[in-house]
């Protein structure tokens, strides 16, 4: 028993160490190493991390249920007066799940990148950044206090920025990186203020101390509401929720493995992870929970509607990711913390498959991303086709694929959880969730049919068309493994309807129970098996309807019918196609309103004339410089004058001290 604990404590610090070492080696001398060695180093680092993770998690399983939380202090970091932070890691039920997801999917995507980035001139730089990302993500996941988590939080943000702008020669890519960075700063600001509030209240940032403070009532509802609202602002930025989601679609400028790893599977789910990690704090703030659920549901709905009409294959997937993240927040917002994490896990697998499949398609199409040019790739890229098909079924929510299981739980809980602030809100949440599920089915099948079916490739350039072929083994390997998990990973958390009274149990929820059951118990959930079956069937029917709809429209060549419909719905189409003009709205707000105001009033008048010229340059700088000049006059360069000043000062002090 204690042996297990000792093994965990010994191995845990190694897990983030491996990618760190990989990053340092590739970062310092990667440029001079042969490509094979570069990716070998990076992949070995991830493989070592993954193996170690599997070992520690299996040891964690071996521990008794109530003591599955092992912390280890690496070193004491800051110790100033009453405020102390130690650099320590915690392995518990939640972080072990994230650990496996991050290192497992991360490892596969590293393998995939070998094929995808083959021939790129900054090969070692790419793997350096990827390892940096994994290192930061592991800090985020393993940190046992909010500061370590925040370092990881900022670290993944940095890695994301670097990778979005990886091909920075194109200024649009660099601008996309910048946009992600700036939008995330807004969120981080909230996160920071939230941390300051916690420090002020309990003088500590340890998750355990926060839990203790919550239990003992030091943190009141008001403090919890303010702090959690601020944390959620941070989560909005990182996890791309309304209104801070605008950076994620642009982030697709980065290489596709990056989109799969960072902007679908791991980093963007950090917000969900943070909410679940602090579930005991969030549950104290029903207002925040309601806001989270609402924003999640709206994000799921709006992003899905935008995805309906996008033509860029990665853009569709990007909005799909935003929409699925919305589901996760909807889940945690209604108190289904386990459901949120389950969806996080299943989403990580099927969305990674989809992105990697899209990457494979993009490579096959010679970097053409417009779906209108694709079609008929089924024959040319069979493995990509089959894996994408599996992932599409999974995301749309068809039994028994993983997406169904996790999504069904969230949608049911959205309906069944009682909200104390707005009692009828569960109908709205359910409605948005169900409609979003329907739209998900539509846009995913649209993507599938446009890309792989619908006749022959519509690309005009015959020279390229002839060369479309399946991607190299390193890429298809990752696809196959991920798609396998996209089918089965959901089975760890089957809905209780399926096993009720049959002696099977939901291993996933049993696993997370010690962490979240206390909080989940505080939410009143309706238990009505008949209603649950009914709603499950209703959502499924909606999903099938959109499947057939999409199939009818896009299976063959784009039909005349489709065009008539598109004509009829032109205003809506335009609205959706332009993403509700949100970017334009933000642009107008920032550029016209805020910038003009800042420029004309704040800068030109207040800052430039008043503060800069009158106060700073006039009074402060002028005054201090003049004073400095006058004092400097004593520095005549004459030795004996210096001696005289010293002797005079001596007598002066002598006078003061003795008389």
């Amino acid at each position, binding site marked *: 028993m204690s042996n297990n604990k000792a093994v965990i404590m010994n191995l845990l610090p190694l897990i983030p160490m491996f990618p760190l070492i990989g990053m340092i080696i590739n970062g310092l001398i990667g440029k001079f190493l042969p490509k094979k060695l570069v990716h070998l180093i990076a992949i070995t680092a991830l493989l070592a991390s993954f193996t170690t993770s599997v070992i520690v998690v299996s040891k964690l399983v071996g521990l008794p249920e109530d003591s599955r939380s092992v912390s280890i202090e690496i070193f004491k970091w800051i110790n100033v007066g009453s405020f102390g932070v130690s650099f320590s890691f915690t392995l518990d039920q939640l972080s072990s799940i994230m650990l496996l997801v991050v290192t497992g999917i991360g490892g596969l995507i590293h393998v995939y990148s070998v094929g995808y980035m083959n021939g790129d001139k900054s090969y070692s730089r790419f793997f350096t950044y990827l390892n940096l990302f994994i290192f930061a993500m592991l800090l985020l996941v393993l940190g046992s206090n909010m500061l370590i988590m925040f370092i990881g939080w900022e670290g993944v943000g940095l890695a994301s920025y670097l990778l979005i702008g990886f091909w920075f020669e194109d200024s649009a890519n660099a601008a996309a990186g910048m946009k992600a960075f700036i939008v995330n700063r807004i969120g981080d600001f909230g996160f920071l203020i939230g941390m300051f509030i916690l420090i002020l209240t309990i003088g500590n940032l340890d998750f355990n101390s926060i839990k203790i403070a919550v239990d003992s009532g030091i943190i009141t509802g008001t403090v919890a509401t303010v702090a959690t609202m601020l944390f959620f602002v941070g989560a909005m930025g990182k996890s791309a929720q309304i209104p801070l989601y605008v950076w994620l679609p642009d982030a697709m400028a980065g290489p596709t493995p990056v989109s799969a790893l960072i902007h679908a599977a791991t980093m963007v789910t950090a917000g969900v992870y943070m909410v679940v990690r602090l579930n005991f704090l969030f549950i104290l703030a029903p207002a925040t929970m309601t806001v989270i659920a609402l924003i999640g549901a709206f994000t799921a709905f709006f992003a899905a509607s935008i995805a309906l009409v996008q033509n860029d294959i990665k853009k569709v997937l990007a909005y799909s990711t935003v929409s699925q993240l919305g589901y996760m927040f909807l889940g945690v917002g209604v108190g289904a913390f386990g459901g949120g994490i389950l969806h996080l896990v299943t989403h990580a697998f099927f969305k990674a498959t989809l992105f990697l499949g899209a990457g494979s398609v993009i490579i096959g199409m010679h970097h053409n991303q417009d779906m209108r040019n694709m079609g008929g790739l089924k024959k040319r890229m069979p493995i990509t086709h089959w894996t994408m098909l599996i992932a599409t079924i999974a995301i749309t929510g068809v039994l028994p694929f993983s997406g169904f299981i996790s999504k069904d739980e969230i949608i049911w809980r959205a309906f069944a959880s009682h909200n104390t602030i707005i009692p009828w809100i569960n109908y709205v949440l359910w409605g948005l969730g169900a409609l979003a599920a329907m739209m998900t089915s539509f846009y995913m099948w649209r993507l599938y049919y446009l890309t792989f079916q619908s006749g022959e490739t519509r690309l005009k350039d015959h020279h390229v068309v002839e060369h479309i072929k399946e991607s190299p083994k390193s890429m298809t390997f990752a696809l196959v493994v991920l798609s396998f998990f996209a089918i089965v990973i959901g089975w760890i958390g089957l809905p209780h309807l399926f096993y009720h009274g049959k002696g099977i149990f939901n291993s996933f929820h049993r696993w997370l129970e010690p962490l979240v059951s206390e909080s989940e118990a505080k939410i009143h959930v309706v238990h009505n098996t008949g209603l649950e079956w009914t709603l499950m069937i209703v959502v499924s029917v909606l999903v099938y309807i959109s499947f057939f709809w999409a199939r009818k429209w896009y299976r063959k060549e784009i039909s005349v019918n489709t065009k008539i419909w598109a004509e009829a719905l032109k205003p809506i189409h335009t609205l959706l196609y332009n993403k509700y003009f949100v970017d334009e709205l933000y642009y107008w707000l920032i550029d016209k309103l805020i910038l003009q105001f800042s420029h004309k009033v704040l800068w030109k008048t207040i800052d430039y004339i008043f503060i800069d010229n009158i106060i700073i340059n006039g009074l402060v700088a002028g005054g201090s410089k003049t004073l400095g*000049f006058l004092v*400097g*006059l004593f*520095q*005549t*360069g*004459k*030795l*004996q004058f210096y*001696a*005289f000043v010293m*002797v005079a000062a001596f007598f002066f002090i002598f006078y003061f001290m003795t008389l």
Partner: protein
Amino acid sequence: MVSLNLFIALGIVLFFIGLLGVLIRRNIIIIMISIEIMLNAINIMLVAFNRYKFIENNDGLTYSFFIIAVAAAEASVGLAILIAVYRKRKTVFVNKLNTMSN
């Protein structure tokens, strides 16, 4: 016997003569001599304290030798610097050395 206070007075007067010399004389050689005067004034006081107040041991006398030795070392370094200055500037007047100031 001459009283201790007289020795102290002599020491103080010599010390300030030396200090004044540093302050007003221009020639570096004279300034260095003034510094020697200050150190010797200190020596006089040291020996006088020992003889009048702490006759039981010879600590003060011993210390005065330390000071003499250190003063000699100081003088040698000072003269070396002075020679270097003279070779370069052809002057030993301290008021000519003011190329650096604010």
